[in-house]
C-alpha cells in the first residue's frame, strides 16, 4: 500500500499537543468501529443497476451518485465557461476594433455574458453541491437526503437548464447583455434574439432546480442528524452548506421573481423593465442584487467550509475559535441580505440609502476578518502538511484576502464612483470567486479518494497547484494595475496592452492547470492506486470512518454520537431507521402496507426514472417557450417546432409527476436522534413549509415590485386596473370557501369518511374553477376594452401578479383532481397527511390572494 499521506506516520500524535477534537465525533485515532462491507458486497439491489451501466446514472437517486453527476457536469461547464474566457482573453490581447480579433462584436458580448453566467451558476455552485451531495449526508449520519427523487430531479433540471443555455448559442445568439442582465438591455427592444430568451429561461430553470435542492437540504440537515450531532457539533463543511442553502432559499426566490417578470416581458410583452416604465431599470437592479449579493456568499461559503475542513485536517488542529467561526458565518448569512445596494451606488438611489448600505457593507467585512484570522491562527497553532488539498486551500486563503481587501474599496461610495465599471471590479470579484474555486479544487483533491476509492499522483497534483497559482495571479493581478480598462467592452487604451497580454498568458496557464487537474484525477480513476478508507491523518469527520467509496447506504448501522464518538448501533425499524415515502402525495398509499407492517430491516429505494423524465420534459417545455415573443409564436416553421416542443414537454412533465406520485418509493426519514428545530414535524411537512417560505419571498418580491413601481409612478396617481372591486370580492369569497372545504376534507378524513373527503375536495375543485372562470370573464372584458398586459405598467403588474397567482390555483386544481380520484378509491383514510400537505399549499394560495385583492382592486 502506498503512503497515503505525507506524514501519516504520526497519526496518533496530536501535533498541537492537545486532545483529539471531534467535529461530530471521530474515529481517526482508533480503528473503525466495524468493518463495513464495500459497495458491491452491500448492494442489496434496490433496483439500481451497476455503476458501469449508463442506466444506473439515469435512474439513480442515491446522494453519492447524484454528487458525482453534479461534480462531473459542473466540470464540463467549467470547460465551457473557460473556453469562452480564453476567447475573450485572445480578443483582448490587443486593443482592436470589432471583428479585428477572433471574435465579432456580438460574439464578444455573448462570450462575456455567458462566461459570467456559466461560471457563477452552472459551474461554481453545482461544483460545490457535488461535494455537498456526496459528503453532507455522510457527515450528518444519514443514509440519503430526505427526498432522494427530488435530489435527482434537481440535478436533471440543472443539466436541462445548462443544455438550454448551450442551445441558445444556436438560436441567433445567446444573451449578450452581461451576466447581470441589466434592464432595459434585457428586454427584446435591445436584445431581440430568441436565444437571449432561451438563456433567460435556462437561468429560470436553474433557479427552480436550486429551490428544490434547497428545500431538500434544509429538511435533511435539520431533520436527519444522528443522535448526539447537535448543531454546535456539526462539521464546518456541513455548517457552511447549511447556511448556503438557507441563503439560497430566500435569495433564489427573489431571482425567480425577477426572471419570471423578465420572461414575461420577453415572452408575453409586459412592460416592467421598459425604459419608459416608472422605476423599470432600477427595479431589475434591486431584484437582481437582492439575490446577487447573497449569491456571492452562496458561491463562497462551501469553499470556506471546505477550506476549514482542509485546514483542520492538514494542520492536525481543530480550528481556532470554532464557535466564533460558525457565529461569523451565521452573521454573514444574515447580513448578506442587507448590503445589496452597494452594487447600485451609481444608480439614482438616494444618498441616505447609499450611506446606510455603505455602513452595512463595511460591517459585513468584520465577520470575514474573524474567519480569516481563525484560519491563520489555526495554521500557527497546528503543524502544517503541504498536501495537494492544503496547498489549494492555503492558496485560496491568500487569494481571498486580496479579493476581500480590494472589495472594501468598492464598498465606499466615493471610491466606487471611480472604480465602478472598471477592471478593478473584475479583478476584485475574480480574486474572491475564483479564490473560492481554488478552495473547491482543493476540496476535489481532498474528497476524491473518498468518492472514487483511488489516490491520484501527488506530484502532478502539486504541479497543477503551481500552475494554477502562477496562472491565476498572472491573469488577474494585472487587471488591478490596468484597472482603468473599461469593463465588458473589448476596446481599451493602448497603454494597458502589456498588462492585458500578461493576463492573456496567465489565462492560458490557468487553463492548463485545470486540464492537468482533469488529467490527474482522470488517470487516477482508471489506473490510480487504491486509496485507504481514511488516507488523511487527523481528519475528524464521519465520511472518513466508512469505506472509500462508501457502500450504497453509507453506514453499517445507525450512526450515533451519543457517547461523544461515532459509533454504529444495530438498525431496526424501531430506531427510526424505517423507510417512508419521500413526499409524493400518493406515495403514501403506494407503499405496500405489508412492507411497513413487517418490522424486519427495511431498505430505502435508490432508483427512479421519473426525475430524469422530468428534466427532459423541462428541457422541451422551456425550449418551446423561447419561441414566443409578444404572446405570439415566432414566424416560420421554427414557430411550429417550438409549439410542438412546448406541448410535448408539458404533457411529458405532467405524466412524469403523476407517475412519480404513483411510484412506490421509500426514502429515509427522521428523526434519527437530532432534528432541531423541526423535531415534531415530518420530513414532508417540514419540506412543504420550507418551500412555502421561499414562495413567500417569490410573491413578496412580486408585491414588492408592484409597490416599488407604484411609489416611483406616484402612489395616488395610480388607478387600479379593474373598474370594480366586486369581481375581486366574489373571487375572495370563492377562495375562502374553497379553503374551508379543504379543512372539511381533513375533518372527513379524521372521521374515516370517503364520501366526505371526495365531496369536500370536489367542492374545492369547483370553487377553484369558479375562481378561474370569474377571473377569465374579468380579463376578457378588460381585453374587450383594449386593456391588455402590454398596455401600460399598471396593466402589466395587474395581469402578471394575479396571473402568477392564477397559475398557482391551476397547479392546485390539478393536484386536487388527482387527489379526488385517489380518494374515490379509498385513499387518505388511514393517512390524511397528503390532504394536510395539499391544504398547506391551498391555504397559502388563499393567503396570497388576501393581499392581492386589496392591492389590485381596492386601493
Amino acid at each position, binding site marked *: 500500500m502506498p503512503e497515503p499521506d505525507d506524514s501519516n506516520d504520526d497519526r496518533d500524535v496530536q501535533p498541537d499537543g492537545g486532545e483529539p477534537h471531534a467535529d461530530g465525533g471521530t474515529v481517526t485515532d482508533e480503528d473503525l468501529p466495524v468493518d463495513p462491507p464495500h459497495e458491491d458486497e452491500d448492494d442489496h439491489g434496490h433496483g439500481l443497476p451497476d455503476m458501469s451501466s449508463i442506466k444506473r446514472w439515469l435512474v439513480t437517486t442515491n446522494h453519492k451518485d447524484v454528487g458525482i453527476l453534479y461534480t462531473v457536469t459542473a466540470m464540463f461547464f467549467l470547460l465551457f465557461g473557460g473556453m469562452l474566457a480564453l476567447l475573450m482573453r485572445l480578443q483582448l490581447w490587443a486593443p482592436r476594433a470589432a471583428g479585428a480579433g477572433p471574435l465579432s462584436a456580438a460574439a464578444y458580448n455573448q462570450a462575456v455574458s455567458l462566461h459570467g453566467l456559466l461560471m457563477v451558476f452552472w459551474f461554481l455552485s453545482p461544483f460545490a453541491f457535488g461535494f455537498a451531495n456526496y459528503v453532507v449526508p455522510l457527515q450528518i449520519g444519514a443514509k440519503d437526503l430526505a427526498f432522494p427523487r427530488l435530489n435527482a430531479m434537481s440535478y436533471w433540471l440543472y443539466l436541462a437548464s445548462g443544455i438550454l443555455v448551450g442551445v441558445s448559442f444556436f438560436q441567433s445568439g445567446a444573451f449578450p447583455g452581461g451576466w447581470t442582465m441589466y434592464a432595459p438591455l434585457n428586454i427584446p427592444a435591445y436584445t431581440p434574439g430568441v436565444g437571449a430568451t432561451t438563456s433567460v429561461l435556462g437561468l429560470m430553470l436553474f433557479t427552480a432546480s436550486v429551490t428544490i435542492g434547497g428545500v431538500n437540504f434544509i429538511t435533511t440537515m435539520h431533520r436527519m442528524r444522528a443522535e448526539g450531532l447537535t448543531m454546535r457539533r456539526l462539521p464546518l463543511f456541513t455548517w457552511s452548506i447549511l447556511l448556503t442553502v438557507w441563503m439560497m432559499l*430566500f435569495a433564489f426566490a*427573489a431571482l425567480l421573481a425577477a426572471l419570471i417578470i423578465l420572461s414575461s416581458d420577453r415572452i408575453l410583452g409586459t412592460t416592467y423593465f421598459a425604459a419608459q416604465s416608472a*422605476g423599470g431599470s*432600477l*427595479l431589475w437592479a*434591486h431584484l437582481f442584487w*437582492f439575490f446577487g449579493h447573497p449569491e456571492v456568499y452562496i458561491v463562497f461559503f462551501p469553499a470556506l467550509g471546505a477550506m476549514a475542513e482542509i485546514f483542520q485536517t492538514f494542520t492536525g488542529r481543530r480550528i481556532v475559535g470554532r464557535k466564533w467561526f460558525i457565529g461569523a458565518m451565521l452573521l454573514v448569512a444574515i447580513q448578506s*441580505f*442587507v448590503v445589496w*445596494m452597494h452594487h*447600485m451606488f451609481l444608480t439614482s*438611489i*438616494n444618498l441616505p*440609502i447609499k450611506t446606510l448600505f455603505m455602513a452595512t457593507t463595511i460591517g459585513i467585512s468584520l465577520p470575514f476578518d474573524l474567519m480569516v484570522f481563525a484560519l491563520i491562527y489555526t495554521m500557527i497553532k497546528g503543524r502544517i502538511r503541504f498536501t495537494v488539498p492544503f496547498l489549494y486551500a492555503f492558496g485560496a486563503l491568500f487569494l481571498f484576502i486580496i479579493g476581500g481587501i480590494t472589495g472594501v474599496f468598492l464598498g465606499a461610495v466615493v471610491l466606487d464612483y471611480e472604480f465602478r465599471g472598471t477592471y478593478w471590479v473584475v479583478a476584485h470579484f475574480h480574486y474572491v470567486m475564483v479564490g473560492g474555486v481554488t478552495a473547491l479544487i482543493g476540496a476535489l483533491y481532498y474528497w476524491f479518494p473518498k468518492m472514487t476509492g483511488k489516490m491520484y499522483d501527488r506530484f502532478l497534483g502539486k504541479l497543477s497547484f503551481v500552475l494554477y497559482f502562477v496562472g491565476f495571479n498572472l491573469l488577474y493581478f494585472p487587471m488591478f494595475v490596468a484597472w482603468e480598462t473599461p469593463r465588458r467592452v473589448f476596446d481599451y487604451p493602448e497603454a494597458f496592452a502589456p498588462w492585458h497580454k500578461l493576463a492573456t498568458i496567465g489565462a492560458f496557464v490557468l487553463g492548463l492547470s485545470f486540464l492537468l487537474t482533469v488529467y490527474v484525477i482522470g488517470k487516477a480513476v482508471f489506473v490510480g492506486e487504491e486509496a485507504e478508507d481514511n488516507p488523511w491523518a487527523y481528519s475528524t469527520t464521519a465520511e472518513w470512518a466508512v469505506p472509500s467509496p462508501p457502500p450504497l447506504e453509507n453506514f453499517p448501522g445507525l450512526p450515533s454520537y451519543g457517547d461523544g464518538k461515532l459509533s454504529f448501533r444495530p438498525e431496526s425499524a424501531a430506531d427510526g431507521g424505517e423507510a417512508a415515502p419521500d413526499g409524493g402525495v400518493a406515495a403514501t398509499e403506494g407503499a405496500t402496507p405489508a412492507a411497513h407492517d413487517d418490522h424486519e430491516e427495511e431498505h430505502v429505494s435508490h432508483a427512479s426514472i421519473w426525475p430524469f423524465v422530468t428534466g427532459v420534459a423541462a428541457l422541451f417545455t422551456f425550449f418551446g417557450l423561447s419561441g414566443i415573443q409578444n404572446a405570439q409564436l415566432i414566424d416560420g416553421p421554427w414557430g411550429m417546432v417550438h409549439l410542438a416542443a412546448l406541448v410535448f414537454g408539458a404533457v411529458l412533465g405532467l405524466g412524469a409527476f403523476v407517475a412519480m406520485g404513483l411510484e412506490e418509493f421509500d426514502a429515509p426519514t427522521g428523526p434519527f436522534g437530532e432534528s432541531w*428545530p*423541526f*423535531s*415534531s*414535524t415530518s420530513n414532508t411537512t*417540514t419540506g412543504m*413549509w420550507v418551500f*412555502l*417560505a*421561499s*414562495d*413567500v*419571498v417569490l*410573491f*413578496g*418580491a412580486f*408585491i*414588492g415590485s408592484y*409597490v*416599488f413601481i407604484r*411609489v*416611483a409612478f406616484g402612489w395616488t396617481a395610480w388607478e387600479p386596473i379593474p373598474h370594480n*372591486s*366586486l369581481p375581486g*370580492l366574489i373571487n*375572495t*369569497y370563492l377562495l*375562502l*370557501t374553497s*379553503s*374551508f372545504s379543504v*379543512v*372539511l376534507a381533513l*375533518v372527513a378524513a379524521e372521521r374515516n369518511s370517503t364520501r366526505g373527503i371526495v365531496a369536500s375536495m370536489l367542492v374545492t375543485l369547483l370553487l377553484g374553477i369558479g375562481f378561474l372562470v370569474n377571473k377569465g370573464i374579468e380579463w376578457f372584458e378588460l381585453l374587450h376594452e383594449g386593456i391588455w398586459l402590454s398596455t401600460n405598467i399598471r396593466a402589466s403588474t395587474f395581469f402578471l401578479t394575479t396571473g402568477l397567482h392564477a397559475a398557482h390555483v391551476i397547479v392546485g386544481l390539478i393536484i386536487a383532481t388527482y387527489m379526488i380520484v385517489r380518494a374515490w378509491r379509498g385513499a387518505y383514510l388511514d393517512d390524511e397527511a397528503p390532504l*394536510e400537505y395539499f*391544504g*398547506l399549499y391551498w391555504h*397559502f394560495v*388563499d*393567503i396570497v390572494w*388576501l*393581499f392581492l*385583492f*386589496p392591492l389590485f382592486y*381596492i*386601493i
Partner: protein
Amino acid sequence: MSHAKLYTWIYVVLFVGATVQVGVEYAGLLEPGTYVAAVAAIIVLSLVKAVIVAAYYQHLRWEQRSLSYLMGMGLLAALALTIAASYSIT
C-alpha cells in the same frame, strides 16, 4: 368547541373581513383626508386574515414555533426588499 365548529367560525370571520375591506372603499374613505387611515385599515385587515388562515387552517398555532419563525423570516426578507427599495427612490 369542536374543531369543525371553530373552523366554521373562522370562515365567517374571514368572509366578513373581506366584505369590510370593500365596505371601506364603498364608504368613500379612500379619499384625501381619510386615505392613509383607510389604506392602513385595509392592509391590517388583510394581515389579520392571513394570520388567522395560517394559524388555524394551516395549523401553525399547534405546530412547533420554529415553523412560524420560518415563515416570519420569509416575510421579513420580502418586507426588507420592498421597504428599502421603495425608500431608495429619489
